[in-house]
Structures are given as C-alpha cells and as structure tokens.
C-alpha cells in the first residue's frame, strides 16, 4: 500500500500468548496477535472492515486474572497480560456457543462451521428441534439478492455495513427485542420498497450466507454450486473511474458472484450495484 507516514510508528507492547512472549503494535486486539502468531481462533461476528461488535462470543479466550472470558476480536492486547487461547474453559465456552447457535440457526452455509463443531465436539441438536429460532421461507423479492433469515445469527454486521460504517443507506436494521430481535427492513417490507441500493456490501460481510447472491442461492438450490471448482480472480470494475477491485468467482466459465478485497485502499471490500451485480453483460453469449 502507498503509505504516507502521518504519525510516528506505533509502539510495540509485550504480553504472553499461550506461554510465548509476543510483541504487537499498540492498539492491536488479541485476535490480531493470534492471527500474527498463526493461531486459528474461530470468529463469526468479527469483520475485518468493521468495528467489532462482540456479539457472538465464539472467539473467547482466557485472560489470566480476569473473572470472565474475553472476546479476542475486540479486547485490546495490554502489556504484561497473560492470555490462554486454548484453555479448557475457553474451549468449553466456544463449544456451548456453537451448540446454541447451531441448534437455533441453520449454519449449513457458514464457512467452517462444520469444522469448528467437530473440533469443539459440539452437539448441535442438544436442544432439540424446537430450538429453531425461525422457520421461514427465504425472502426472494428481487433478482439480485436473497435473505434467508433462518441462517441469521444476528451479528449485526450487515446493519453496520449498510449503516454508518460504510454504505449509509440504512436500509436494514434490527427490529424487535430479545428473542424477537431480527434483521429487517423498514416496516418489514420487501427490499424493493426499502432504501436499499443493492450495493451488496451487506452480503460481503454476512458470515453465514443468510444474505446471498441470487445467483449463488439458485445454484445451491439446483445443487450446482461447487466452490471446489471455482476460481477467484481480482480485476478492476468496468464501470466508473473510481477503479474498484472486484474478485470474480468463476465456475465453469461463468461469473457466479463478485466480492471485493477487504484490504484494498480503494474499496475496503465495498462496491456499488454496478460493480457487484453488473457483470452479466460479458456473459450474454
């Protein structure tokens, strides 16, 4: 990246991570330190382009001397602290979180969920079939994107992406409280009556596939979605001169969806409707 040093380089601080002395720049989270050290901590509501909300608690770690477990995604590393990422307590807590989530929501399209469930020996059916939080048909009210709230874990990432952190369209927000809380449009209407501008920035951050491309949704329904044979190629949007970076997901020579690199200085993972959905013209063949 083209870096202009505006301030002095950040100072490093030292702490102990799973028994190892670790140095990270001031302001880093425990999760940043874990990732830098190559540790694989499960995360769901954390978004690399968003301010942490610490809603899901699947990333918890044990901080020595603290009464409660700390969410690695949002707890800042402090000099001298001692952190255990894989202690029995932390593992047990993750297991419970995964069980609660997996028994109440459909994690079938959550990347890595199955892997974590196995790793933490979670029993998703522990609370029986009545635990399902919702049981509704996916909402298909336009040709671009589908909302399947059975898969929603209410991490609020989409609300943040649509709201003041990025898009500022405020088309989706949280309705209801407590058990009734859910992501919704104004008056729970169809997207086409909302303020949605179909930038798909909410889809980009959704960790579970509750929000997805219609193209992906249809292919999954038809049983033709196959990530193993897909390629991902990053190129530049064909439309305006902003120059957004598009990652084209291609399966059998068809563009099946478009994402955007999160660490890119132009887009930070965001696109507009044309970049996100306007690829079809090259495929009119």
């Amino acid at each position: 990246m083209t870096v202009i040093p505006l301030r002095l380089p950040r100072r490093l601080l030292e702490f102990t991570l799973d028994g190892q002395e670790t140095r990270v720049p001031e302001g880093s989270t425990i999760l940043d330190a874990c990732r830098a050290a190559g540790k694989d901590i499960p995360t769901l509501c954390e978004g690399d382009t968003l301010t942490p909300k610490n809603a899901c608690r699947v990333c918890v770690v044990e901080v020595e001397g603290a009464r409660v477990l700390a969410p690695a995604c949002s707890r800042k590393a402090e000099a001298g602290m001692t952190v255990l990422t894989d202690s029995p307590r932390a593992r047990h807590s993750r297991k419970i979180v995964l069980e609660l989530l997996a028994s109440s929501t459909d994690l079938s399209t959550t990347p890595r969920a199955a892997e974590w469930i196995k790793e933490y020996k979670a029993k998703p059916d522990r609370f029986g079939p009545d635990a399902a939080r919702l049981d509704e048909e996916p909402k298909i009210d336009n040709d671009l994107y589908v909302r399947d709230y059975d898969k929603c874990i209410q991490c609020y990432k989409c609300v943040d992406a649509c709201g003041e952190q990025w898009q500022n369209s405020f088309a989706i927000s949280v309705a209801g409280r407590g058990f009734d809380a859910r992501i919704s449009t104004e008056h729970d209407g169809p997207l086409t009556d909302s303020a949605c501008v179909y930038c798909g920035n909410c889809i980009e951050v959704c960790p579970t596939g509750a929000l997805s491309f219609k193209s992906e949704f249809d292919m999954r329904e038809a049983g033709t979605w196959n990530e193993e044979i897909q390629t991902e190629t990053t190129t530049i949007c064909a439309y305006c001169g902003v120059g957004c970076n598009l990652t084209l997901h291609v399966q059998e020579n068809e563009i099946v969806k478009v994402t955007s690199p999160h660490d890119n200085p132009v887009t930070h993972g965001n696109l507009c409707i044309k970049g996100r959905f306007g690829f079809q013209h090259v495929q009119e063949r």
Partner: protein
Amino acid sequence: MKKRERTPKTYARITHPLVRDKKGGPLRRAGWDEALDRAAAGLDAARGSFGMLSCARATNEMNYVAQKFTRVVMGTNNVDSCNRTCHAPSVAGLSAVFGSGGGTSSYGEVDHTDLILMWGSNARFAHPIFFQHVLRGIRNGARMYAVDPRRTSTAEWAESWLGLNVGTDIPLAHAVGREIIHAGLHNTSFIERATTGFEDYAAEVEPWTLAVAEKVTGVPAEAIRDLAHAYARAERAQLCWTLGITEHHNGTDNVRALINLSLLTGHVGRYGSGVQPLRGQNNVQGGGDMGAIPNRLPGFQDILEPDVRSKFESAWNTVIRPEYGMTLTQMFEAMETGDLKAVYCIGENPAQSEADSEQAVERMKKLDCLVVQDIFLTATAELADVVLPATAAWAETDGTTTNSERRVQRVRKAVEPPGEAREDIDIICDLAGRLGHPWKYADAESVWNELRSVSPDHYGMTYERLAEHQGIQWPCPDTDRIEPTYLHGRLWDEDPARRGRLAPFGIVKHDPPVDLTDDQYPIRLTTGRRLDSYNTGVQTGSFASPLRRGEYVELCPEDAERYGVSVGEEVRISSRRGTVQAPVWVDPGLRPGLAFMTMHFPDEVDTNQLTIEANCPIAGTAEFKASAIRIEKLPVSGPVSGSVSGFVSAPAVRS
C-alpha cells in the same frame, strides 16, 4: 398510459467477425482473415484521412498500442476517445495550470481532509465508492458543501447546498474568489510563491459581488459567503467536480475558475488539499496517459516538444508528425466535409453517445471505411463495414487501467471469451502486420514494459510492484520507491528551481449556455447519471436492477402541476434539434424550470436527440448539461390501460 418495458434491450456478445459487402447492404459473417484483409484494405486506401477512436474502457496496454498504430502505421495523430465527451476540459484545465492532467489528490486524503467541496457532481450516484471516502471524511469531521443545480442525494449529506442556475459556475466561483480576497482570507504567501496572474484575477472577479452573483446564479449571497469563508479557512480542503462542470460549451473555463479557488487558498499540493476531477469511465485517465489523445504521446508528453518526439521516433523507428491531430469533435466535423474517410473505432459508441446523435450517425455514414472492434453489436457497429469481435477488457484480458486518483491497477483475465472473439492488442497487431508493420507482443506485460521505457512517470511500475502495492499512483519514476499520494508538492518548495513552473490563475469570463431558454423552449434540460445504469446502457442493460425504471423526464412538483402532468404520463419533449417522448417523473430535488434526463436508454428514449453540439473550443466537449426544451402534454388516446404500479407515487428519496 401504457406500461413501459422496465428492462432495456440486452445486447448479445459478438462471437465472430462480420463484414458488409456493399454500402447499405447487410452485415454477414466472415472469417478472421477475410475481415482483417478488408479492414486493412479500407484503412490503407484512406491514408492521410484516418482517425482512431480509442477506448477509454479498455486497458492501458490496448490504448498504447492503438495510439502507436495511429501514429506509426497510419502516420497521423488523429487519435482520441470519449474523454472528449466528458473530462477533456479537466485535462485541458489542469494541464494548463499545473502541466499535468491528473487529479492532484488521492481518495485516502478525502478521509482525512477538513472540507469537501463537491461541485457539479452527484457522486453518491455516479461515483459511489468514492462517495464512501467522502462519507468517511464527514464522519471524521469534514464539512461538505454541494454545488449543483439539483438537490441530489449527494447534496443531502452536505452542510450546505448551493443550488445554482445551470451554466453559472463561473459567476459563483468568481464571487467565492472575490469574497475570499475581500475578507483577506487568501493565502498571500502561496500566491506569491507559487502562482502568476493574481492581480489580473483579482480584477476579473471584482465585479462579482455577492449581490450580483446572487442575481445571476440564484444562490443566496449568504450561502456564497459562507462557502467562501469555510473553504478559505479550512486547513485542508478537497475540491471535486464531475461533468456538471465539464459538459459545457466553456467547460475548460469552468475548470479554470474552480482551480483558481485552490490557488487562491493554497489548497493544492499538500496532503489532504487538492483538486479532483472524478472520471466517468474506468480508464479515461489511462487512455489519455497512454497517448490516445491527439496532442500527447504516452506519459502525457507534449507532441510539439522536439526532444519528446525524437525519443519516440527512435524507440518506434518512425517519424512523428510535429502537429496535434484532430480531436474526436474535429474528426466528426471532418467526416462531414469528407476530410476524414476512414475510422477505426475500438469500443465506444458515438452513434449514441455524441450530442445531437442523429447528426453523428449521418456523418459516420459518409465514411468510406468504418471498422468497429467491440464486444457488442452497438448502434455504431451496425454502421460499420467490418466488425471485429473483441474480448471484454476487464474480465477476459490481462493488463492495467488507471483510476481517477491516478492509481494504475492490474486487470486480469477471469473467463474465456466467447466464440472467435480475440484480444484487442492481437487484433490491432494483426492489422498493423497487414499494413507493413509486423508487431509482436508476447503479452500485455511486454506492451507495458515498452510503455515504461518511454514514459518516465510509469517507469517504476512493474507488474510485480503493481500487484504487491495494490496499484501505484503515477508519477512513479523509480522502481524502488513510491511518491507521495498528492501531486505538485513542489509548489510549496522554498527553492525556486525545485518549485518549477508557477501555476497561472485562469482569467475566464462568464458565458451563459448557448441554447437559450425562451417562450418556445422555456425549460432548462440538464443530464446526468443514475446509480444503477451506465452511459448508453449497453452493459448495464444486461442485469436485472430492481432500481431501474427506464427513462423518464424528471420535473419538479411545481412544473408537473403547471403542465398538468402526473408521474408515468407520457409527454413530448422537444428541443431546437429534435423531439422524443418519455414519461414524467417528479423529483422534489429539482427546481422550477429545470428538467433532468439521462442517456441510459437510447433505444427507448434517445435523449441525445435533444442535446446541443455546442463545443468547448479548447477541449471539444459538448454542452450536454444545458439544452432548452419544451414539454407538451400528449392528447389522451383512449382509456388508461395496463399496470402502472410503481409509477403512481412520488419517488422515495434514495440515499
């Protein structure tokens, strides 16, 4: 009121070459050899009267090869592209002041500036991801001012909206400048150090008091004063504009009037302070940088400089004519007079994108030979003698493009092209070979490396570095360092030698739109873009946008009432050049006497039949933003039928 088709015509990819056996006859399928032979023969016969329309949507590499083809194979500098219809005034204005046609800042600086002045730009719709940087800037505490005849959704975010009359940007800018000077807020040390012509400028703006400007521009004096003080007092400020400034018969003067404000306040050449034209096409910046313009060689080097020419002459083993070629605008005029007989048009769609499009089509029909290379059979391709199917530059081709912040980024091939379609560069090289110049490039990277060897500003950008840094902004003369994100820091240098050429104030005068409103044509029509559609709609027509509702003429509620028309009702819209029919939409963001349309659906409503070909004499850009029109209610023909859902209510303001 009939139900309108919501999805515009979709274009199918061209998968094999097409030729036309005789003028007026049909296009028929041909093999590559036959098509290329015909194209070569047609171009060969027209040596000396040839023009290249290069493509501002294709890669830098393709633009480099296209202009080299024009200069080396065809021996002329007649190469241009659609930058002429949009941002040529920005390039002309910026290079007259700073010697370089690029915007001076980067997007990241917008996140960290103190004031953002959006002038004639509905960025929330036209440049949405740039606007995210603006929004971040606002969240970080920047104040935004929006200057626009329409109260757009961009203006909704502004601290203050200055709704000026179409075509009064210079009076407004002059009044802002005068107020800054009179309040003693101008940056005297910067003016003395880095600029020339301040005295003349001060004299030029002197008559533009707030009161006079209020009368001419329609903006309350207090709002002008407020903007002047805020802009001058801001520690850092970004001045951004788009086609609202450039698409006028005096677009370059408009640009100069805005740059004057940055010179007056020293808001240029520093991190967070600068001027940014936001480009409309993905590679307008790059096309010009690559020399696909009639007056510059690759690296934006002036063709009239003997040293520059001789460098290219020895690199290309050729002789370069020491003269500027024809602009796109001049080429169209030369088609009329028969001075231009053959055109090689790559991408582009002038048959629908030119102002007064009917005239443009008539002119192209006069050509002896029109070769069109495209991915679709556009309205322009339908006029061609030879049609060559190309790959989509952004998804089926390797190369680079350059965005509005001068960032050169890699485009990469992700899918295989359809049928017999071939890459632009290969096609051009095949034609060059048939015309006696057997060029071979192994790949796009070898074209890029040739460009690097002749363009100092690009020398440091290897493909490897471009990938590593997620794009690099020019200038980048060295392979081991990255320059600052902003241009012209030199203007702040203490040392006059390093400071270089001083920046001249532009002494420009108010000149109202050419197409005057009167009793017959009482409404001012201005044009622009919608969020989900793009230019002549050829690409965006293919995806099912829920936002799309086809073309409408947008009126303010008062005018709609005055004409007795309601949303969805078809009206006749006439200018001094043509007549079209479109339904009405009511937009409270418009003011009485102002109507708005786009060019996105030319197959449904050909808005460019209305626009005027009044060109900026310096840049050649037409006055798309200011036509005079008349609106007529159509006689009711039978009962209302069909579903009109979605057309009956006033639009929700989308933001």
